[in-house]
């Protein structure tokens, strides 16, 4: 198999592992511990590109569906995917694609523009997780819109801002190295 394909496969696998491992791992940021899964979902696309990111997140969902406890809080299974929070998991598939397409700077772009694209990419990708997530939550618990937003969006806003800002910073700092890896000069 070509060097290029091997590298993409491996990078996707590493991101899958990173996303899955992060669901076991909480860090004490601010008053409540947060889970970093969404940040790595966003980063898998921004650093690996849309397709590597999509395949990483897809495998992550497969691991969860076949029963490894890799979804938030050590849960797993189709049950979770079809449960009230399943829509967020579907949103995980959109995030890397958007992040990868938006933050895709050729090397010679101005620094300011790169920063802008990184921020835009991270926040768009992060927001896309909520797009299927909230209607699904509303529907599966028969909530009205205000309470669905109250339950599924508002408590997560501070974490959303911090994690996506961090994703933008990290993607900006590391993009070149990851691009070089994927370019795979011999």
């Amino acid at each position: 198999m070509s060097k290029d394909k091997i590298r993409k496969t491996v990078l996707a696998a590493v991101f899958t592992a990173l996303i899955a491992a992060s669901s076991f791992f909480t860090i004490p940021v601010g008053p409540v511990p947060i889970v970093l899964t969404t940040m790595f979902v966003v980063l898998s696309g921004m650093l690996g590109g849309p397709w590597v990111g999509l395949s990483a997140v897809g495998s992550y969902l497969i691991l969860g569906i076949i029963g490894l406890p890799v979804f938030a809080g050590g849960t797993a299974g189709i049950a979770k995917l079809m449960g009230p929070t399943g829509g967020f998991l579907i949103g995980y598939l959109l995030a890397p694609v958007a992040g990868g397409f938006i933050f895709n700077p050729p090397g010679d772009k101005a620094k300011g523009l790169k920063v802008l694209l990184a921020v835009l990419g991270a926040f768009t990708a992060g927001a896309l997780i909520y797009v299927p997530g909230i209607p699904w939550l509303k529907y599966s618990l028969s909530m009205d819109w205000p309470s669905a937003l109250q339950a599924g969006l508002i408590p997560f806003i501070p974490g959303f801002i911090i994690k996506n800002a961090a994703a933008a910073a990290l993607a900006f700092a590391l993009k070149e190295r990851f691009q070089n890896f994927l370019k795979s000069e011999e």
Partner: protein
Amino acid sequence: MAGSLMFQYQPGSSVLHRSDIRVKLIIMIALSLVLIQVSVFRLSLLLPFLLLLQCSLKRRPLPPPLPVLFMPALIFTGNFLSLAAGDALLSSALITAGLRTVRFTFILWMAQLFTETSDPMCLTPAFYRLLKHIPLIPAGRISTQLGLSLTLIPVILEEMNEIRDAMISRCGWNPRSPLKNLVHMGQPLLNGVLLKAEALSDAMEARLFTEDSTEPELLGSSSVLLPLLAGSLFILILLAGEYVLSRSGSSSFFVQFF
């Protein structure tokens, strides 16, 4: 912590343990799909089936972790409150909320039966065998990718814990600047991940990785036909019985909810 990854698989020799993983997977998915629409009839027919499978394990069921017990309660209350607050009758709100909760519990139960009896080590070969029949899907690559990530999860988890501990012990955590914390932790983590990817792809290239390699082995003895027949028979009976009975008597038994 890495141990919790495997906490669900319990080796054994029951019928479920000996059934082919692919068959179990397909039946579980099929039943989950059947349950997208629930009725009292469907759920009450499924209960003895699941009980039978549970008993075939011949051991006491594992106590589920606390959040799992909490979820059905949450689903019930959430559903009931919002239905009752709407214009639904109290009784129908109760039934709908109840059915949805039971459905959730059943799916969870199936997932538990599946994971308890399926060795994760056999999962990727089984997956390969499933996927390779679907055209246009790079089965070899996907199953290798899944297998790789399975081996990497504990390694990366360890690295995450190490980086966090190193930062804490160097007083790198500043509770007032969470953003800085995240970036300071993410940088070495992602660098490490890239180095790992570099080393791993070198090693795979050196060992001539290719998509159409000799098929991975399905470990252990696994019976295919019997469980497949039993499973499809059950689903057939369920659907047929429902069709016939619901035409003769129109009880609320068969009313379907999403």
